């Protein structure tokens, strides 16, 4: 009977939390969009060549990256010849030894023999530069290398 209906007044109504997941998702999206997976900002063109006999390069913490290629559009003042990039900046061949030493110092000692050097080189670069890099790596005894490529056939793609 309506006469005995409980009175609603007095209690504070519960806060509506229906929009909470949306706020969380919004944050999630923001981070998804803003997160950059690549550690280094590339200042060079880096169009990797294709190969199909590839092996996966897992254990990302055991990889040292050496980039090479022509300076990209914004860095035209550095010339049109292929350059090496280590970390975030252009480098010369002589800097590689120091770079490897620095990378090794930042890893645990027992992991050092497992370090691999990944060469991410633009497909238009010439082998002279690669030869110099390889020579430099041999000097510091960093012998495990990986020519990073895209997966695909080596024929008919230019």
């Amino acid at each position, binding site marked *: 009977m309506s006469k005995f209906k409980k*009175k609603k007044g007095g209690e504070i109504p519960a806060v509506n939390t229906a929009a909470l997941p949306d706020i969380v998702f919004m944050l999630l999206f923001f981070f998804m969009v803003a997160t950059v997976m690549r550690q280094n900002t590339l200042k060079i063109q880096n169009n990797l060549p294709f190969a199909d006999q*590839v092996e996966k390069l*897992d254990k990302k913490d055991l990889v040292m990256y050496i980039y090479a290629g022509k300076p990209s559009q914004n860095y035209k003042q550095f010339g049109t010849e292929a350059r090496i990039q280590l970390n975030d900046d252009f480098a010369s061949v002589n800097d590689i030894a120091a770079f490897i030493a620095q990378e090794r110092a930042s890893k645990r000692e027992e992991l050092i023999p497992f370090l691999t050097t990944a060469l991410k080189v633009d497909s238009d670069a010439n082998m002279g530069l690669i030869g110099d890099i390889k020579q430099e790596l041999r000097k510091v005894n960093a*012998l495990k290398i990986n*020519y990073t490529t895209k*997966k695909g056939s080596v024929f008919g793609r230019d």
Partner: protein
Amino acid sequence: MAKRAAPEVNAGSMADIAFLLLIFFLVTTTIEVDSGINRKLPPMEESDEDVIIKQKNIFTVLLNGRDQLLVEDNIMELKDLRKAAREFLDNGGDGSCSYCKGKKDPSSSDNPDKAIISLKNERETSYKMYIAVQNELVAAYNELRDARAQALYGQAFTEMEANYKDVNWPGNKEKLKEKIDQIKLDYPQKLSEVQ
């Protein structure tokens, strides 16, 4: 008079919209896994003693500055390289290789253990071409190893290696390792680069 509750906006489908967006980003985001051709550089210290290798056991691949291939003194197209390398490696000229299916040509390599591929490039060679050649040579080895593994264990070599790396693979890893090593022993990858 009792306070009248404000009418609520129906937010039931909000979650669905959020999920739709989430799934869209999940699908479009690619977490890059790098892959490439693994190589091992030769150590710096040169041994003084010269190892004498018979000319017929060396398969020379020359890459000039204009990205042209010269294989065993003949001009060759990239697409024919894999087959030529296979024939050279699988030749088995001295008959000591019981599993070789090659022509047993006495003027080509003695057995896969002795056969060496020598790759020489010039400074002007493009990286793309170099990778393509490396890829073809590795492919020749992989094809031979695959065939050998198929004959011995009924499984492709590349599959065996993938299983070995797979953490979730249920089989016996030590046995698999033995098998892989056996195949690697039958067709050792001897690829030398001339500086």
